[in-house]
């Protein structure tokens, strides 16, 4: 571990940080623009070309605003909650590989904050930690509406985390049958989705060699469950009961203003992007895509994986926005029903079916031996 190594690690972490900030600035603007398009409006168009600097303007405004602190807050926790929201949001993305490993100064550098061998568990842990921010913010505000938001967050997170975890388990089990055995590293999971399906079904090579070996095809059900769960996990419409403007003023962040509110806002949009990135990594092959190694310039081949990764992630982010523009908020009991009576049973059944098929493919039918 010499200076170059340390610099590379710091550089990677900074790159992730800057990427997330820039992406958030774009995403807030993009969401407003897309919502506007879906409602026959123009959307923000005053700050900068096409209004793209709107987020910067809003951020500056929030930065200079007074931070009002109500008298009855539980002060320490009230101050802690916004940080508790932002830090896990950024940490989640640290384990996501956002490009193929590149070579700098003779060293192989993975484009990833940190390649944890328990990456998937880390993602689950951080996404549950983010819920504490909402719960603690709601409780420490000492006000009824934030409290209601916090209580809802507790119930919602528990019901959807289970479905999310089960959907991931199906993917992990599926990946464990491939060469190299089981893994929880996201970089390794991306590596295993490279290639096309003619490696699996040589007989169907004429067709299968055009179909990438992404998990979304064999694990389509898990993908749908996972996506619904991450929409709920990030408290986005139609699962935004936590902030429910029409009933709860602002929900958990009612009593927050200025930069403290901005941190919740930032965390929400970072979470959307990180969760979409994780969905893209687990199911859509991450940065996998044609790079034309050799025939294209080396620079292009090095950058293309990152571009594929961003395209896949943004495709999912757009679905987030699309769903928000379309669906009304679920009622509390509907939310619980969808979570416990639909998604978790569906995830369990799918886990069993998927595991059974994998087992039969690997070991044959139990009575055939």
């Amino acid at each position, binding site marked *: 571990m010499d200076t170059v190594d340390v610099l590379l690690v710091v550089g990677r972490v900074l790159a992730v940080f800057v990427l997330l900030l820039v992406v958030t600035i774009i995403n807030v603007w993009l969401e407003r623009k897309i919502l*506007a*398009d*879906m409602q*026959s*409006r*123009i959307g923000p168009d005053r700050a900068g070309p096409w209004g793209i600097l709107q987020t910067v303007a809003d951020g500056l405004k929030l930065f200079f605003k007074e931070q009002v602190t109500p008298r009855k807050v539980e002060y320490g926790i009230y101050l802690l909650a916004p940080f508790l929201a932002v830090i896990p949001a950024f940490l989640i993305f640290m384990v996501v590989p956002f490009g193929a490993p590149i070579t700098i100064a003779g060293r192989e550098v993975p484009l990833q904050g940190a390649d944890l061998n328990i990456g998937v568990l880390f993602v689950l842990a951080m996404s549950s930690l983010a819920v504490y921010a909402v719960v603690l913010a709601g409780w420490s505000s000492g006000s009824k509406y934030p409290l209601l938001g916090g209580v809802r967050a507790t119930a919602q997170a528990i019901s959807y985390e289970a479905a999310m975890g089960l959907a991931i388990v199906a993917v992990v089990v599926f990946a464990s049958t491939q060469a190299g055995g089981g893994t929880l590293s996201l970089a390794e999971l991306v590596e295993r989705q490279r290639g096309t399906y003619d490696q699996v079904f040589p007989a169907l090579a004429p067709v299968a060699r055009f179909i990438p070996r992404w998990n979304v095809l064999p694990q389509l059900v898990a993908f749908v469950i996972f996506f619904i769960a991450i929409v709920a996990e990030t408290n986005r419409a139609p699962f935004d009961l936590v902030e429910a403007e029409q009933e709860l003023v602002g929900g958990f962040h009612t009593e927050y203003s200025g930069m403290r509110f901005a941190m919740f806002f930032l965390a929400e949009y970072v979470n959307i992007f990180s969760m979409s990135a994780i969905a893209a990594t687990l199911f859509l092959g991450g940065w996998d895509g044609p790079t034309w190694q050799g025939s294209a310039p080396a620079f292009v081949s090095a950058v293309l994986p990152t571009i594929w990764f961003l395209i896949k992630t943004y495709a999912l982010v757009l679905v987030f926005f*699309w*769903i928000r523009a*379309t*669906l009304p908020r679920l009622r509390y009991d509907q939310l619980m029903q969808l979570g416990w009576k639909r998604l978790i049973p569906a995830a369990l059944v799918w886990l069993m079916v998927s595991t059974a098929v994998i087992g039969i493919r690997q070991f044959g039918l139990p009575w055939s031996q």
Partner: protein
Amino acid sequence: MGFLSELWKGLRVTGRTAGRTIFGDGLVTTKYPEEMREKPQRFHGRHVLNRYPDGMEKCIGCELCAGACPARCIYVRGADNPEGAPVSPGERFGYVYEINMLRCIFCGLCVEACPTEAITMTHLFEMSTTNRNDAVYTKAELLMGVDGTVPHMFPDDPLADHAELDTADGWLRATAPGGVAAYEGERSWQGTPGPARWDPEPDQATRDA
């Protein structure tokens, strides 16, 4: 999973709308200060106090407009015309005439109530001020000049469009002068504030022929 197909139905609606907005003519917003929408002919905008062609004020200070006003935003006080230098053709004239534009609901009942067509409405609606007192329009601001031009409150404003002040709302178009619908269109409101110039109505025999 029936809810997925319902979800898809909804997504198609928003997706189609987005497509129409981006690629088609779905956009309904007009960028207001840059592009103005054309106002309807009978748009109810700012009031104006008219004069006769000879420069006399039409207002006779009868306060019928103030009585008709549901928002109670008009304040009128009449006074006897000065001996030898009458302001209006009648006995009295509007000595004080104020309209509080913050209270006005632009219903046009004052215009209907006015027996001499002294008060009419124009197409001007940009009247925002930074001071509540400025929203109370006095007689000096409402009354047109002797030449028939109406003073603009904010002549230096980039949005100031003087043509709007020269367009009357034309509520009389719908009915005849006597209020009888059968006579509709026979004598139309001239569409501009200021001296009314129109030909006398034909007699009954000519009209029926």
